[in-house]
């Protein structure tokens, strides 16, 4: 009796502890569980919380349509708290304890790298929604954000052709995404005949807030008589003081435009955008995209979140595409078994929000249009240019000597993420 009561108490205590983390883990069995692995606290909460809401919204929408394979979908939310090793632990918990069918999550590259071995070992699926540096293709991961050729290179092309830019400042935060992207861009610019002295590379720490020196260096670099632009891979919070300093020092978009790869509607929401009008961003989706699909998505999102001031952004669209692809692949395979879904999902094509269809390619990257937008005074982007068709995500950059011979194809006979076309063998650099 006493022992029984004790056991009951500890079960209750365990439930109380895990309840806020794994909502609904004790609900009835007849559901398909979907894991959501986004930081809800710590530095990355600023970006990732919205994606958690987006996933809950998408799952809710799917359940309204009758669920999947006759079952309801059930979200399992965990909080890895912007702590990279914790991402791996939480991923393991989702797969082993909660038995989720697929996981949607991660933002930073380092968090993705930390969960990769878990997904490989436990053979589950990860849908990764953020633009990243490429140089990776993994069997269990689907990259629904942009690879460098779907964002950085078209943006540089636009500046070169439309604005006549000849001098380049590559400014970024000091970590893997900006470093790799800048390496690719540097190789690309040199291939286009830009001289070394016309490229300035600058790295700053995370959360850098004192931009006076760097902005005045950019100003000096830009006053050499050639048209200059800044390609910014500055991440997250550091952008706000950077743009403030640009505006304060009187650098206008007409003189030195800044094209940013990490600044979206969400980041601009914390900023007075009037002095930024004309600076550029490159994404695969803008909230301002004028299509019926997008209008519908925004209306439903506002209704779900009960706040019509909430903006939508590119990683949200990536989750929208990724989630629908997973749903379609599960329906095609008739099961949520990861191996079956991995086989079924290649070639699946679903509508994106910019009026076309995105398809999952054999390299586990997707096709997307590339949009260049100018920041408007209401914090929205207006598309000034877009690629004529869809661009296929290129996982191994053609501009880096290490990876230009590598391709990835996860379909049956080859089934390799880093096939070297020069040696004809699977396995080269990378994972």
């Amino acid at each position, binding site marked *: 009796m006493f022992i029984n009561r004790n056991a009951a108490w500890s079960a209750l205590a365990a439930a109380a502890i895990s309840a806020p983390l794994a909502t609904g883990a004790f609900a009835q069995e007849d559901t398909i569980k979907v894991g959501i692995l986004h930081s809800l606290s710590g530095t990355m909460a600023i970006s990732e919380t*919205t994606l958690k809401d987006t996933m809950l919204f998408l799952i809710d929408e799917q359940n309204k349509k009758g669920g999947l394979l006759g079952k309801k979908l059930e979200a399992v939310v965990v909080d890895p708290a912007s702590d990279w090793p914790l991402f791996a632990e939480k991923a393991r918990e989702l797969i082993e304890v909660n038995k989720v069918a697929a996981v949607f999550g991660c933002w930073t590259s380092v968090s993705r790298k930390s969960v990769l071995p878990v997904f490989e070992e436990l053979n589950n699926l990860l849908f990764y929604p953020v633009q990243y540096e490429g140089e990776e293709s993994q069997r269990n991961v689907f990259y629904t954000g942009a690879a460098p050729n779907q964002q950085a290179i078209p943006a540089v092309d636009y500046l070169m052709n439309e604005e006549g830019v000849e001098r380049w400042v590559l400014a970024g935060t000091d970590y893997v995404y900006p470093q790799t992207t800048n390496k690719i861009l540097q190789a690309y610019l040199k291939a286009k005949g830009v001289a070394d002295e016309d490229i300035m590379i600058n790295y700053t720490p995370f959360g850098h*807030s004192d931009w006076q*020196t*760097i902005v005045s260096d950019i100003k*000096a670099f830009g006053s050499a008589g050639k048209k200059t632009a800044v390609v910014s891979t500055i991440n997250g919070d550091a952008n706000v003081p950077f743009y403030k300093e640009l505006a304060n020092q009187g650098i206008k978009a007409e003189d030195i435009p800044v094209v940013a790869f990490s600044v979206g509607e*969400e980041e601009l929401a914390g900023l*007075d955008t009037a002095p930024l009008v*004309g600076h550029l961003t490159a994404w695969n989706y803008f909230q301002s995209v004028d299509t019926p699909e997008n209008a519908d998505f925004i209306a439903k999102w506002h209704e779900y979140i009960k706040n019509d001031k909430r903006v939508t952004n590119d990683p949200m669209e990536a989750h929208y595409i990724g989630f629908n692809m997973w749903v379609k692949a599960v329906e095609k395979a008739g099961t949520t078994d990861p191996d079956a879904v991995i086989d079924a999902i290649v070639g699946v094509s679903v509508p994106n929000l910019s009026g076309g269809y995105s398809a999952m390619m054999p390299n586990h990257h997707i096709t997307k249009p590339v949009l260049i937008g100018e920041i408007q005074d209401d914090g929205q982007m207006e598309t000034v240019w877009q690629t004529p068709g869809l661009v296929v995500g290129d996982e191994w950059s053609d501009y880096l000597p290490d990876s230009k011979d590598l391709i990835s194809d996860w379909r049956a006979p080859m089934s390799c993420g880093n096939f070297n076309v020069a040696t004809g063998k699977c396995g080269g650099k990378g994972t």
Partner: protein
Amino acid sequence: MRRGLRWRPHIPASLRTALAILLLLFIPSAGMTQTADLRPLVNALGAGGYNETDAAIQELARTGDPAVAGILEALGAGNLYTRKSDGEVFIASRASGGFALTDPLTGASAGEAASGAVERIRVNNRLRRTIRTAYGALTLLSPDAGMRRAATQSIFQSGDADSIPLLDEAIAAEKDGSILRLMREARAAAVLKSDLSDADKVEAIRTLSARGGRETLALIAPLAGAGGEVGAAATTAVSTIESNLALWDAGQNVWYGISLGSVLLLAAIGLAITFGVMGVINMAHGEMVMLGAYTTFVVQELIRAHAPWLFDWSLTIAVPLAFLVAALVGMAIERGVIQFLYGRPLETLLATWGISLILQQTVRTIFGPTNRQIGSPSWMSGSFELGQLTITYSRLWIVVFALAVFLLLILILRFTAFGLQMRAVTQNRPMASAMGIRTPWVDALTFGLGSGIAGIAGVALSQIDNVSPNLGQAYIIDSFMVVVFGGVGNLWGTLVGALTLGIANKFLEPYAGAVVGKILVLVFIILFIQKRPRGLFALKGRAVEA
């Protein structure tokens, strides 16, 4: 293969005649009635892509018609719309349910249009530049001095030989001395791009050399390699300007260093009280700064909603409120937690770190994880030029504000009864207690003062940094560094420490980069602490042992 290129348009003879007649009708009409012939040019703005709009702007500007300036201004501001039904271009402003149209040439109202019936003419950066240049040429003779100044500036940047006659005309008419000088410099810049005689160019180089600056350097430098009289003059001018710039660069680093130092000072000065004077390792100090910033946000939101005319005063109003909020929270922390942990630094460190996480998550729950927008009052936006230095008002005011807070604190400690009691308690607690000072209350008030000052710092930092729940974390390490470097328990040490670290950082940054610069400063401090464990301004005498 390339058959497409050989294709010739086959126009029927009748149509060709019609075209010829049209052209004949058109040409004489130019110059007779200007508005009539501007209309097709204006409509051309809305036809086609950026390239066509660009050409149309230049075409319009070439007419020199006074109405064009207004049209270009509307285009740059994004107020020019094309009516889809007939391709006519209008200035449109939002009206109920659609747009109110105005004729851009006559200024007369042209009725209304539904939202779907008009399309905005889009401008990108290239068009904005074209507009600016064209607008500059059109407004150079404007009666408004500000417009003439801006126009001269844009001609200086983009003018060519064609603008010389226009500048000559403007120079002859100009009365204002400073604008006259700018115009002469703009003319000199245009002369360098023209094919005038060498003597003219040497004269132009002399004018520009006196102006100095990087823009000028970019103009002259390409000529420096060339031989002859012009080349020699250019080489001299380049070396003069460059040595001048090197001086200004040093001055700029000092100013940026002072500015960074003042930010460090603001963040650290509250800590100098709680850690320096009381000896409490308060990891929640950064969160007090954050609370101050969020107080500013709430104040601004209330002002925006209820009293928009007060907006320029929002920061002034926020300062005392931020002090109160942070001071009350600080006192609550001291009474609730820290008072039980005096003399146990490790426990204090852990407890306050826990408190900092609780405060962060509380703010995240209440205000959301995203950044909050804090507007700048008009007197804190923009910048002014001091020689080759660009000084931004926000930074200037923060320097002034940091020094004012510092002086105020020194005065409180030195000349008030509370300051006296505070110093007495921190120097010798049992003795102070024996003299009748209620030491627990002095502790609470001192902690409240330190926290409140951190709150004030939050008001200032909200102007240059993100207001997010993580705001405080960015400053906590720097604050401890400043206090330890300056000397624990000494406010003057904090001042000197903050400014030294700021300036050192800014002199290192251009050479080592921001990341390595920070590391070097940290290494320097570690070495310095090895040599002088008590910091720059060590307390001497009996207080040290307390």
